[in-house]
């Protein structure tokens, strides 16, 4: 089943473009955060784009995905509209949640994206439940749960691994191991043999790959997704990567060794994929053109977000619950 991307430069170019969209989105999110246009917290996915794109390229629209606080890349890769996402980051009407959720609560149920999540590892338990619904309803969807290396020390991760295996659920856990949990080096606070070993202790097959290698992610995901859809039960992919920025936009990552992030640039996924494309038929002009086009698109979304309407204050009181509505007299549901 393993797919050899080297034979498919067109597929690589499509994925490369999605990675560029994520990168440009995240750069714009950071810029607008510092410019004061985006409030709260922005956790950028810069440097990890190949994982979301390589995994999601192997999913169907109706497959489910749960994400974490660093969810912009997962959402775009799963097919959420980056324009609506940018509007959401700005808190404007037309955002994925019309401004009610913001960066950490991006969701697009129309493409199976069941939500980013502000609580570490909570997506794990939601995923196994969604998979139980899939089984009960006789569907052949699978559920993908993105979790970071910091999340593996929470109980819900271990409960969900056990649960997924006990009921042989169609769940793919993807642990993006960027080796640092906020500002704490994960291995210093993690006992045992690591993420893959934890999964294996539950008889959940686990594979560790270079997450910055789009080819490795795509071919591994292609095989594993197909196995899960055909009834293998849950599996885990540990994708090694590196967070090129701080935990959130306003974190300068001063806890890192000098030169560490610069050295990591050599291995970052966009540069690596670009080199491959240059060796396999695309010209620098074509790539630059693609990059400019994507940048212009995202700039347009930012302009749209700046100009979009603020939500009417009455919207604060809607979509809470059916029973007991309206929350305040006159508020529509």
């Amino acid at each position: 089943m393993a797919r050899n991307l080297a034979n498919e430069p067109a597929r690589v170019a499509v994925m490369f473009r999605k990675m560029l969209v994520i990168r440009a989105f995240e750069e714009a999110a950071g810029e607008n955060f510092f410019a004061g246009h985006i409030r709260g917290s922005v956790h950028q996915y810069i440097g990890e784009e190949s994982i979301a794109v390589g995994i999601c390229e192997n999913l169907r629209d109706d497959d489910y995905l749960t994400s974490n606080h660093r969810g912009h890349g997962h959402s775009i890769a799963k097919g959420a509209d980056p324009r609506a996402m940018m509007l959401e980051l700005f808190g404007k009407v037309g955002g994925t949640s019309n401004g009610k959720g913001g960066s950490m609560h991006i969701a697009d149920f129309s493409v199976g994206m069941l939500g980013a999540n502000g609580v570490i590892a909570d997506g794990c338990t939601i995923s196994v439940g969604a998979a139980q619904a899939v089984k009960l309803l006789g569907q052949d969807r699978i559920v993908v749960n993105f979790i970071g290396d910091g999340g593996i020390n929470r109980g819900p991760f271990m409960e969900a691994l056990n649960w997924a295996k006990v009921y042989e659920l169609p769940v793919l856990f993807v642990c993006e191991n960027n080796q640092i949990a906020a500002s704490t080096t994960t291995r210093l606070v993690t006992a045992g043999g690591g993420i893959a070993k934890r999964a294996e202790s539950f008889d959940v097959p686990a594979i560790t790959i270079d997450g910055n290698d789009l080819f490795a992610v795509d071919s591994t995901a292609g095989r594993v997704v197909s196995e899960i859809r055909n009834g293998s039960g849950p599996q885990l992919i540990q994708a090694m990567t590196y967070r090129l920025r701080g935990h959130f936009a306003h974190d300068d990552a001063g806890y890192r060794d000098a030169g560490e992030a610069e050295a990591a640039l050599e291995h970052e996924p966009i540069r690596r994929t670009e080199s491959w494309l240059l060796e396999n038929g695309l010209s620098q002009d074509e790539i630059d053109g693609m990059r400019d086009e994507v940048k212009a698109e995202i700039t347009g979304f930012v302009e749209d977000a700046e100009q979009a309407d603020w939500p009417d204050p009455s919207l604060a009181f809607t979509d809470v619950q059916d029973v007991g509505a309206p929350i305040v007299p006159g508020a529509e549901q």
Partner: protein
Amino acid sequence: MSEMTYAQAARLGLQEEMRRDPTVWALGEDLGYEGGMAGQYSDLQAEFGDDRIVDTPISESTIMGAAVGAAMGGTRPIAELRFSDFAMCAVDELVNQAAKARYMFGGQARVPMVARMPIGIRGGVAAQHSQSPEAWYTHVPGLVVVTPGTPAENRGLLKSSIRCDDPVVYMEHKGLWGMTGQVDESDQSAIPLGVARTVRDGRDITIVSWSAQVGVVSEAAAALSGEGISVEVIDLRTLWPWDREAVMASVSKTGKLLVVHEAVRVGGFGGEIAAEVAEELGVPVARLGGERIPIPFSIPLEEAYKIKSDRIAARVREMLA
């Protein structure tokens, strides 16, 4: 009409809903062989299979979290937590996920699940198996909170909770499992959420209560009636949303309100009702609830925590004096 217990009536309600809707299922510890702590799931696994009456590991976070995911995935799960005390291991999944998903995702999600977590003193199970934390959940936007007080209501309110598209915290009282009452099996209708029941009509004072405490309040009302004091007793049945209209109408008539609950008085839901009534009607209000102590084990200590009918009657006499 048939006579059945509170636990049997709940079992009947669940069975009826599971027959009616194939997307209804239950997950929790010991639902199959044991049939739940009080037999409220008894033999249902034989009828519906182990993928609809699911025996789970002792993983409260995942019982609750999986119910959230399964509800988003188009089914109607009932998450059985056995004790409201144990549900505290899963408050994050209930409060941060179930209650907020619809709102924070801008209306894209519905989480039609029932989180079933019995409350109350059953006798001798002490501090970690006897609490009544219903007020906690009334404080959380997005949740419905239901406290059935009779067999018929435990059937009818469970049915409406299962059919509800909001997440419902369903709190049976462990002391009521064996309570018997008449249930009309031919009537398949659900009891609407948010509607109180007037247990006893009266003129002089309104007592609002819920769950097992309603029985104690009714004893007090009966005793007071022998003294010529006429007490109106209201069982809220649903705490959020509570039946404001019924309570205000009753207190407008009687002119006085006493709220009585088994839960700790400090921060209890009685304070909310008393405050709303006082603000709107400006009448005398009072509360009776447990002292702010953990539920003790030994018989005289446990009894000392409870709000007995003589205390309720004494409080009423004071208010009417």
